[in-house]
């Protein structure tokens, strides 16, 4: 009996359970299967204009539709169902059907659409309102308003905590990017992690510096191959809460790039064409011929050289003393042209969407000669959901190919600045280069020293999602990337004056080919569940990644003819200077738990366990994790009562760890390498380094607190963040006694670097009415960087470079005390009082090279069919000025106007020391010490009109079936600065400064 009753009980229990479940099941099954009817309708905005592309779903069912061009829609739904309308920029709207067949709805624009903004946090998405981490989003709209070819350029002035510096105005030039400061003591290893559509993308150059000498930096960056027009949004993850899920790679922040995806609705074809003109933002005020010759003669007199030597062609009358050429204009003052063509087709229905787009960008530069760089890219993606919506697949491919052609631009710019103003004609009458009887090196010889690179990038990615159970979803992210580079630099003998008789046997070419490919597989499970008022989102996933790179660079020297210079086979001598072959493997398990209590209290826990082939055997796996908390206190009833104007208020904070694995491959192994020493015609093998089984990541602990406020229905929004991150376990060369066989071991040292900062953002909608809208946003970052500790700094290789308590980016210099009125020589502070100015002891002035603060101010106005966007970008900073690489004042090189204020006779109080041709020792020493003194660092702050964009909508697409918009855009239009040099951003007189670009374009949509 007992057994029976047990069975009965169990049966009863089961029946009870089933009864409880039945309503749920039946309602869904019934609705899903039987009483369905077609509901049609129309969606309009508050002005009654139809809205296309609105997402319409039947609440708690997997049925959806999208509104057409005229706002109309149709959907299968039951009479008791509720339709939910959603569209970015509008408030959600739920409309019960109540048995109607036709429904007309009007959607309300959302003022700032705060709740609608969905942020991509990499493995998950989160709404702006409920995020616990620090994520900045830059939308395609903002990127598109700038005539740029590298998407990184579009982030400047738009994101707090992100410092971006252009290295040159040349096409293809790299950008330095730092998110919340420099974490690693090593100058390499501060790059953020880039992820494009879920696929990690290595920003490490495959280029060879010997080849790409025209471009500053360590070779051409793979990021140049990205096309800003294909990007939907860029999200930058900054704090521990957002980055810890990226574990050992998240320490320097994460840049998530999402490409555009097809949107459902009628097929849309659009074309966007623009052409632009570019010129350098600034040139230096140099001496004219009369002033120059005066200084030169004075220099000879000062040095007591009389008569003026035969080889001083500029002053001794060999060159026409009345000739004047503005060499800056001649050598980097041309107008650059650019053309951009873009076309795209997108469309689909609620189940399948696609997008195909192609882009061409061509650009010349400001240097003489005919050099064109171009970039062609294509993006294609398709996404599909099955009818029952349980399975979805998204496939996205992105291909781009870029060609860079440049002369030896750095030398051209240098020459533009230093050539004497009376230097001879560039060309002879017959059009050949004029060498003026071998009295000068014609600067156009640098046109012969040319650089050509071809790079291609392929990024393919597939996302699969399958709903296992209503709340449980399986997802997989599969990705593949491939990068190729082929570079060649040609240095033919024709760059040298033919009078020297140097032939093609001295020509050479530098070749470099590189390839990198990587794949990633990331299976994930997502489980979301509600426990009453508490909702839980959880995620667990695995990651497997492999990346292999190969690079071969060689020099081909000596040819029988210069026409064969590109052929490696024709070279007399081939020498390999790099044959690199590396593999990197990585695996991880990661997870997230997010608890949300009524949208009021939110806890976000993330973690990752990482394994990487870069770490030594004892440290192969590591754990990282973070906790984020947010309290949306505007949701509290008392707040709503007390501060009714406060539409949104949130306090959040996070703490956690992440790591930096930019530590090179194989660095822990005690391998043998081939030596450059030979013995009896064969190469030796030598032990490369000591075995370090504890070789591991740099650890970064991040803490953040922030306050977010929305006032007057979010018309005023404020975000304030305070962050502190401490990086320890720094990878440096730890000095060892030589008895170990080596001077140092690359290992993790308990040195700590601290970055702290305040980030402020203010966004306001100043005026908003039917025809006019004016909104502003302002952002400001005040960063601080400090070396907190470094054991045995004195004994290390960093002894003369770093100071504890000072920022990493500091420099030690002599202190310039001015010019001695008696001698006319620069005077420096003799700190150790030994009567001599000597390095290291007398270099006691510490200058900080990081910005004190930086930010941007953006204003957007729309008046009827006009749209105006104005972005100002600013940075308060110190930087290297002209003096850093200035010429010897008085030598045969031209000088800036302000050097006229030089010391001439005894008693002169002048800022510049006496002119010298370099024949007297004292002024020469003065010059060299001056280059190492605090005079080379001065204010490099600037305020720049970064972007100005005006557009006018000629035709609205919705009304006429064809839409047309014309626009004018400008980049770097105006710069306010006291900087003494070419450009406060590049801070170099040896490369092309940032360009001022003006463009005109048209967008047509069908």
């Amino acid at each position, binding site marked *: 009996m007992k057994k029976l009753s047990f069975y009965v009980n169990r049966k009863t229990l089961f029946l009870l359970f089933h009864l409880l479940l039945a309503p749920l099941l039946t309602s869904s099954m019934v609705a899903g299967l039987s009483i369905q009817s077609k509901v049609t309708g129309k969606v309009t905005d508050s002005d009654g204009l139809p809205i296309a592309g609105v997402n319409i779903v039947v609440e708690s069912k997997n049925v959806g539709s999208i509104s057409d061009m005229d706002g109309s829609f149709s959907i299968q739904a039951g009479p008791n169902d509720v339709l939910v309308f959603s569209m970015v920029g509008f408030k959600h709207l739920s409309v019960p059907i109540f048995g109607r067949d036709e429904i007309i709805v009007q959607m309300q624009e959302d003022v700032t659409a705060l709740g609608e903004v969905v942020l991509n946090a990499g493995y998950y998405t989160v709404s702006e309102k409920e995020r616990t981490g620090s994520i900045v989003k830059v939308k395609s709209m903002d990127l598109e308003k700038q005539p740029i070819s590298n998407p990184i350029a579009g982030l400047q002035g738009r994101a707090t905590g992100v410092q971006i510096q252009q290295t040159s105005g040349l096409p293809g030039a790299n950008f330095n990017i730092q998110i919340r400061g420099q974490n690693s003591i090593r100058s390499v290893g501060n790059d953020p992690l880039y992820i494009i559509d879920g696929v990690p993308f290595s920003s490490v150059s495959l280029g060879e510096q010997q080849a790409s000498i025209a471009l500053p930096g360590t070779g051409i960056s793979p990021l140049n191959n990205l096309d800003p027009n294909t990007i939907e949004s860029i999200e930058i993850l900054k704090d521990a809460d957002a980055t810890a899920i990226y574990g050992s790679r998240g320490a320097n922040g994460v840049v998530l790039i999402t490409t555009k995806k097809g949107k459902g609705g009628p097929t849309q074809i659009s074309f966007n064409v623009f052409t632009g003109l570019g010129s350098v933002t600034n040139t230096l005020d140099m001496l004219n011929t009369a002033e120059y010759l005066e200084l030169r003669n004075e220099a000879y007199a000062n040095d007591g050289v009389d008569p003026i030597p035969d080889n001083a062609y500029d002053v001794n009358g060999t060159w026409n003393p009345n000739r004047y050429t503005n060499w800056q204009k001649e050598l980097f003052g041309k107008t650059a042209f650019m053309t951009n063509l873009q076309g795209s087709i997108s469309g689909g229905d609620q189940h399948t969407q696609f997008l195909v787009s192609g882009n061409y960008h061509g650009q010349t530069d400001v240097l003489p000669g005919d050099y064109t760089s171009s970039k062609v890219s294509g993006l294609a993606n398709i996404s599909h959901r099955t009818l029952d919506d349980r399975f979805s697949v998204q496939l996205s491919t992105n291909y781009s190919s870029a060609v860079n052609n440049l002369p030896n631009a750095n030398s051209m710019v240098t020459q533009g600045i230093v050539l004497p103003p009376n230097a001879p004609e560039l060309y002879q009458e017959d059009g050949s280069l004029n060498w003026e009887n071998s009295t000068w090196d014609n600067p156009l010889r640098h046109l012969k020293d040319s650089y050509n690179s071809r790079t291609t990038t392929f990024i393919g990615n597939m996302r699969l999602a399958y709903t296992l159970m209503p709340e449980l979803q399986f997802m997989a992210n599969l990705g593949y990337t491939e990068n190729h580079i082929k570079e060649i630099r040609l240095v033919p003998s024709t760059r040298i004056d033919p009078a020297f008789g140097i032939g093609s046997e001295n020509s050479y070419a530098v070749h470099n080919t590189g390839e990198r490919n990587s794949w990633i597989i990331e299976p994930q499970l997502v489980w979301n569940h509600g426990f009453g008022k508490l909702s839980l989102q959880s995620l667990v996933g695995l990651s497997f990644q492999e990346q292999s790179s190969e690079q071969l660079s060689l020099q081909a020297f000596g040819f029988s003819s210069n026409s064969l210079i590109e052929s490696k086979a024709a070279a007399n001598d081939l020498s390999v200077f790099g044959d690199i072959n*590396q593999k990197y493997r990585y695996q991880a398990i990661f997870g997230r738990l997010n608890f949300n209590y009524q949208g009021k209290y939110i806890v976000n826990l993330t973690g990752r366990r990482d394994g990487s082939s870069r770490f030594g055997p004892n440290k192969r796996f590591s754990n990282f994790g973070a906790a984020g908390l947010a309290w949306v206190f505007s949701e509290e009833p008392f707040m709503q009562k007390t501060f009714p104007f406060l539409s949104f208020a949130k306090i959040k904070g996070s703490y956690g760890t992440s790591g930096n694995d930019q530590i090179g491959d*194989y660095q822990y192994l005690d391998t043998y390498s081939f030596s450059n020493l030979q013995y009896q015609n064969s190469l030796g093998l030598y032990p490369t380094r000591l075995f370090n089984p504890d070789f591991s990541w740099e650890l970064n602990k991040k803490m953040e607190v922030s306050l977010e406020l929305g006032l007057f229905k979010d018309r005023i929004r404020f975000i304030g963040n305070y962050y502190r991150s401490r990086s320890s376990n720094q990878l440096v060369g730890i000095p060892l*006694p030589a008895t*170990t*066989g080596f001077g140092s071991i690359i290992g993790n040292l308990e040195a700590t670097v601290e970055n702290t900062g305040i980030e402020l953002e203010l966004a306001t909608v100043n005026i908003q009415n039917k025809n006019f809208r004016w909104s502003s946003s302002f952002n400001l970052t005040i960063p601080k960087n400090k070396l907190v500790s470094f054991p045995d700094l004195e*004994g290390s290789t960093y002894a003369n470079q770093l100071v504890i308590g000072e920022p990493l980016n500091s420099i030690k210099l002599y202190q310039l005390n001015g010019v001695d009125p008696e001698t006319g020589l620069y005077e420096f502070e003799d700190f150790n009082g030994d009567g001599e100015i000597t390095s290291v002891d007398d270099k006691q002035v510490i200058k900080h090279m990081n910005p004190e603060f930086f930010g941007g101010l953006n204003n957007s106005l729309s008046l009827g069919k006009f749209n105006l966007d104005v972005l100002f970008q600013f940075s308060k900073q110190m930087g290297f000025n002209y003096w850093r690489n200035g010429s010897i004042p008085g030598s045969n090189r031209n000088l800036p106007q302000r050097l006229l204020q030089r010391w001439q006779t005894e008693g002169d109080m002048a800022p510049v020391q006496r002119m010298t041709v370099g024949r007297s020792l004292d002024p020469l020493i003065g010059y060299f010490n001056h280059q190492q003194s605090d005079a080379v660092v001065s204010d490099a702050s600037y305020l720049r009109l970064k972007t100005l964009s005006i557009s006018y909508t000629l035709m609205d697409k919705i009304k006429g079936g064809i839409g047309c918009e014309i626009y004018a855009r400008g980049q770097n239009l105006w710069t306010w600065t006291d900087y003494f040099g070419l450009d406060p951003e590049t801070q170099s007189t040896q490369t092309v400064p940032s360009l001022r670009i003006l463009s005109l374009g048209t967008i047509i949509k069908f």
Partner: protein
Amino acid sequence: MKKYKQPIYRNPLIGIYKVLSVILMITVSCESFVEVDLPQDQITGEAVFEESGTVQASLQHIYAELRDNAFTSGKSLGVSYLMGHYADELHLVNPNLNNILYYEENNVLPTDDFVLGFWSKGYNLIYATNSIIEGLTVDSGIPEVERNNYLGEAYFLRAYLHFYLVNLFGPVPYITSTDYTENQAVSRQSEVLVYEHIVEDLIMAKDLFSATEINDDNFRPDHWTAVALLARVYLYQENWESANKQAIDLISQGGFELRTTLDQVFLKDSGETIWQLGPGLEGRNTHEGFSFIVNSPPPNCVLSENLLDSFETGDRRRSQWVGTVIDGETQWHFPYKYKQVSGTETTQECSILFRLSEQYLIAAESFAQLGNTTASLDYLNPIRDRAGLSFLSPMPKEELLDAISQERRVELFTEQAHRFFDLKRTNMANTILSRIKLNWDPTDILLPVPDSELSINPNLNPQNEGY
């Protein structure tokens, strides 16, 4: 009923649990996933010792370093050049060579770059020898005879490198392992102890080298090189009998032969060379030639008056091994043992580290010390004879030792600091050098240990006296 036993929706937690356990299994089983192969341009230590070619290459690297960058190099960073100035062989003419001037004037500082170079390059190469010894000891798949020869070379080199360290710096650590955790805190060992280790290693090397397989080109040390160094080391230890035995063994059984004419001694194919350093590429000649030979005056450095005066009249070495260049009134004399300044079609000369003459002089000295004057003269006179000097007749022991010392001076001048080491081991350095060198202090007998080394590893304290 049955079909209801399967609930339509299972508890999702069970699903998660199952998936998690699968994930965990995958993770655990995939730890080897993050192991990667090595790149082509690097080889693991293990792989190096699996093949003869790579073991040879790692030894060749050490020889190339000895030729180009370590103590024995003929460049101005080697002991021939620097210690030649430090003792009484060379005189610096170019006043701008400050770093050499410190040696000329016996004012070497603990921060000196050459000192750091001697020390750190020495220990760097010792690491390389230890790495070979440790690598070859494991079952490495190289035939035993070959393996023993490589081991012999490594043990020999370890001894040879320590020999220079102990002579330059006095007490030094004798390093026999690659473990940096151990080697970063080592202390200095007494000179006696270091010499004992050197002898141990050399005996080991001598036995490991197969006595039958001799390198014809003398570009790598072999059994007889170990014997030669052993003879030298015993001599330095004043172990006359052993020194004598090794030297006599080598002279009688080594198959080497004194060249009759002086201009053949330093040629590549000279029959009296026991070990010489091969060229990097065919056609290159010695660094000594480049460092010493003066083509156009003024020279950087010349032979000291003192050394020139010490040649007996009629010594052909004075005319054949000393070069002369004339600058107006001034005559400059320079070491001219090696005649080639630059490259030639095929290599003519190589830097010689061990040659038979030294062994004759070791035999002569040890016989003299043991009281056998006749035998001593039997080995001294052939060297004098070749230089065109008369045979010496028997004489009292002290006089004979002086004669041998004088012979060593003019025979081995500017070769790997023989002169300075001889002065040092015979306790004559103070007497002789204080007479000639203004700044000579008794403590100058040793170079200072690099300052940076003492600060990184305080166990190396105290610094040598006088610094």
